[in-house]
């Protein structure tokens, strides 16, 4: 299928990209193109201008920045998976990124693109919410920082304005935490039907801190703060964990589609949260 006509720009700096965005009537940012190109090809969108971020070096890569990792928005999933800093301080993200599609998609698709795309079934937003990431958003009037809980506004909608760019994501270090991303799919290369991100700090025989967030259980990632609280202080064994997570899906509004209805998703979320927490404790 062939997209409608558009003008194409490939700036090499963030400033130039922002200028192009502010000048154009109807512009769209292109990152890895793994979500945007299908949308264009199906003609669900027909922007007049495409601003490709692929040549902006400053947007790529992972570095340490105090007690956080600073991740450039244009860092591909494959780099996140391989990056030793990510594996050490934010293993949850690498683990979840491994479940995305196939090698081609993982080499093209980017961390920032997946976050701004904000698909409720996407895996990256949930990890960012679970680990309490912060988002740096640049506009012509400067850069602002938005917390994870304010970043995802609705399905396919984030705090990033039409003429703004997500430039960097700061992920607080979770060094030494056990983590697990439990993704439920019918075929390997599928978006999450439901998934659960869990990260735990174990102290002695019990859970000292916990982060739990759910994918595709609402229009944005769901952070299960009540469950997190209940996990603290208990031993990570099957019965206790199952009891602690039993109402994790309460109050959620998951979708109903060909893969399952809302009730089934709520049931799945409960089962998978138990499994995710136990696996996080084990690894």
């Amino acid at each position: 299928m062939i997209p409608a006509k558009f003008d194409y720009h490939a700036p090499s700096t963030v400033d130039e990209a922002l200028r192009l965005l502010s000048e154009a009537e109807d512009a769209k940012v292109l990152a890895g193109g793994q979500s945007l190109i299908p949308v264009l090809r199906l003609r669900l969108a027909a922007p007049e201008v495409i601003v490709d971020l692929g040549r902006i070096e400053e947007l790529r890569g992972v570095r340490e920045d105090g007690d956080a990792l600073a991740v450039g928005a244009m860092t591909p999933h494959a780099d996140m998976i391989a990056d030793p800093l990510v594996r050490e301080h934010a293993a949850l993200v690498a683990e979840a990124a491994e479940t995305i599609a196939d090698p081609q998609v993982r080499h093209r698709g980017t961390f920032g693109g997946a976050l701004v795309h904000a698909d409720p079934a996407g895996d990256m937003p949930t990890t960012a919410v679970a680990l309490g990431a912060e988002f740096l958003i640049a506009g012509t009037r400067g850069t602002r920082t938005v917390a994870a809980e304010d970043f995802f506004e609705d399905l396919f909608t984030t705090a990033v304005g039409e003429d703004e760019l997500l430039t960097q994501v700061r992920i607080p270090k979770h060094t030494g935490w056990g983590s697990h991303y439990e993704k439920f799919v019918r075929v390997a290369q599928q978006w999450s039907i439901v998934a659960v991100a869990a990260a735990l700090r174990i102290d002695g025989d019990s859970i000292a801190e916990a982060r739990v967030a759910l994918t595709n259980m609402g229009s944005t990632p769901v952070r299960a703060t009540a469950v997190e609280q209940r996990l603290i202080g208990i031993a990570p064994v099957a019965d206790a964990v199952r009891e602690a997570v039993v109402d994790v899906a309460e109050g959620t509004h998951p979708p109903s589609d060909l893969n399952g209805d809302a009730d089934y998703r709520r049931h799945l979320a409960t089962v998978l949260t138990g499994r995710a927490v136990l696996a996080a404790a084990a690894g």
Partner: protein
Amino acid sequence: MTVTEERPTTEVGTPRRRKEDQRLVTGRTRWTDNLQLPGMLHLAMVRSPVARAKITSVDVAEARSAPGVLAVITGSDVADIQGSLPNAWPVAEDQKAPPHPAIAVDQVSFAGEIVACVVARSAAEARDASELVDVEYDELPVVLDLAQAAADTELVHPDLGTNVSARWVFDSAEACSGGNVEDAIQEARDGGILIERTYRQQRLIPAFMEPRSVVVDPTGEQTTMWSATQIPHILRLMLALTCDIPESKLRVIAPDVGGGFGGKLQVTPEEVVTLLAARQVGRPCKYTESRSESLMVAHHGRDQIQKLTLAAKQDGTVTGLKVELLADMGAYLGLVTSGVPILGAFMFNAIYKFPAYHFACTNVFTNHAWTDAYRGAGRPEATYAIERLMDELAQEVGADPLEIREKNWIKHEEFPFTTVATLEYDSGNYEAATAKARELFGYDELRKEQAERRERNDPVQLGIGVSTYTEMCGLAPSRVLGALSYAAGGWEHASIRMLASGKVEVVTGSSAHGQGHETAWSQIVADRLGVPFEDVEVLHGDTLVAPKGMDTYGSRSLVIGGIAALRAADKVIEKAKVVAAHMLEASPDDLEFSAGKFTVKGTDKGTGIGDVAFAAFHAHDLPDGFEPSLDAEATMDPDNFSFPHGTHLCAVEVDTETGRTTIRKYVCVDDVGKVINPLIVEGQLHGGVAQGIAQALFEEAVYDESGTLVSGSLTDYLVPSAVDVPSMVTDRTETPSLTNELGVKGVGEAGTIASTPAVVNGIVDALRPYGVSDVPMPCTPHRVWTVLQAAGASGGGAA
């Protein structure tokens, strides 16, 4: 001139890598969409977004003046010349079929139907302009539910007066091939076992890898069409009849074709539209569908409701089967739409001997895309039904599913066996295949593990699925097709050209779309003529090169087309023998031919077939009256079908907490008769089994209540990839077919036919302790969980 060396005749049976794979796998080949012709134009189709409506207006003014556009064609522009797309299988004398226009004229009957076509300089311009065509629809109520459609409350085609296209009935008492099924049912009711079930064969989408593509060049003396089709010969004839072109003015080429699975066994609206467009503008035109279009409008498969009644004695001996089918035709009849469910009629009795059988099928129109052949076509549906029922019977009797099958199947010493459905099975050995599968599978150990898991209430239960199938291959004896009122024969043609240099060209009318004919035919002919494999070239897929043929479907190519090639080779040898005798100054009767060489019996005097070919070419010194050519042709029309069979065993783990099924072990032992190339056989089985697993677990074409295809992309229509399919253990037994001289049976559809019931039987077996006796396909985690919830609510529970 070549001197043919003596070689052992070992090509047949050798696992040769396929000679065609290099070009197919790299894609650097003649896929239709790769073709570029001088001055070629591009087409885009405007398709109906609604399932049923009157077309009140089509405004093409804006599209016509868009950049690059040469023409916009609407249904009313071509109403008088487009004819009606053909249905070659009127299954009943009073079969009802609506006119089937390539471009809808005043109404549309399913979402995706073509309402206009844009011809432009580039594909992009055609696509852009297609969005400017303004069509107004007056929507009408849609008919989607099969049972409701059959009740005729709302009509898809009011002019027909009914939604029922045809009814087709077979009854063993009437056919004198068995008893009366109602008697068997009454007896079962009075003290035997009666099993009544309704199964749904969900709608599937063939989802071949290469989307359909067509190029038409109208500029030569013959109009040439390249099409990604399975049926260049049938297509040529049908287009000639449909579009009123002399057959001799049309050349059809199926270049390399990337899969079909029956989905390219069709005369398509897109082919007709491209032909009409090219003739109108007088320049070559190309149309290639997008994946979305392909999923929406390339014909679908299956979609039947099967109401089944199985009668048996207390000991598990089956006494009769009654089958009532509702089959969804979709909105129109395609080439063999109406015949697909009827092919299944001959297979519900499968490998079993029961004496009474009744089959009744009602073909019904709805506002869905039309259905037609899809890998197995009628036989997977039938096999599923009977293999599921045999498991239900085993459960009822309290016997092992394999035992109950053995009690009922035809013993190997009972062949040839005339079935209750009137087919004559020539050969088979179900005992041997089952014994081998059972051992490879570790059947008894897995049953033990299953018992342990049940005992300890393991949340992950183990199930063992059994499927002992047979099928009919080699479609088809022309007389049988005639009796079933199919419009054509089932023969196949081959010719062999002995080139002056001793090389060999084999021309086959059965053109592959991924099956590996070039390799297999080369092996057969190399052996027969005693020439090196590399010296044999197989040509096909072009009505100019291979003027006669019946094409590729129904696991027919090898058993009919391969045998035709073999017979043509034998005729070459007969001719060559006359020349060789002349060269050797001997009598033809004194010659023997072996490994490519004619020798005078009892001497070392001889000559190679290559030398004979050269002698026939220069013709300087041939026997008096000998026509200087060794070339020969043969047309094979089979006397009977061939009947592959086998035993598939599938162990599944079902996670009762999530409903998820994982295939733990898959073993299949298939008897496809003599094997020409074991690698090709294994490849066909792997692909076939994967496709059957896909029906059991993953794939379903789903429409919403307005008639829009919801599973309209590969994100929602889940075709499994390699990682979603288990590693399989494949093995064989070899009981030669007696219906052809190679003893071959066909393997193209076997895996698909056998595997679906193996998987579903496994899932149901895993869940028996919870009181579950069926899970509708595809057995998605959600469905399995829902079934478990319902069973739990009704008092079931793990043992």
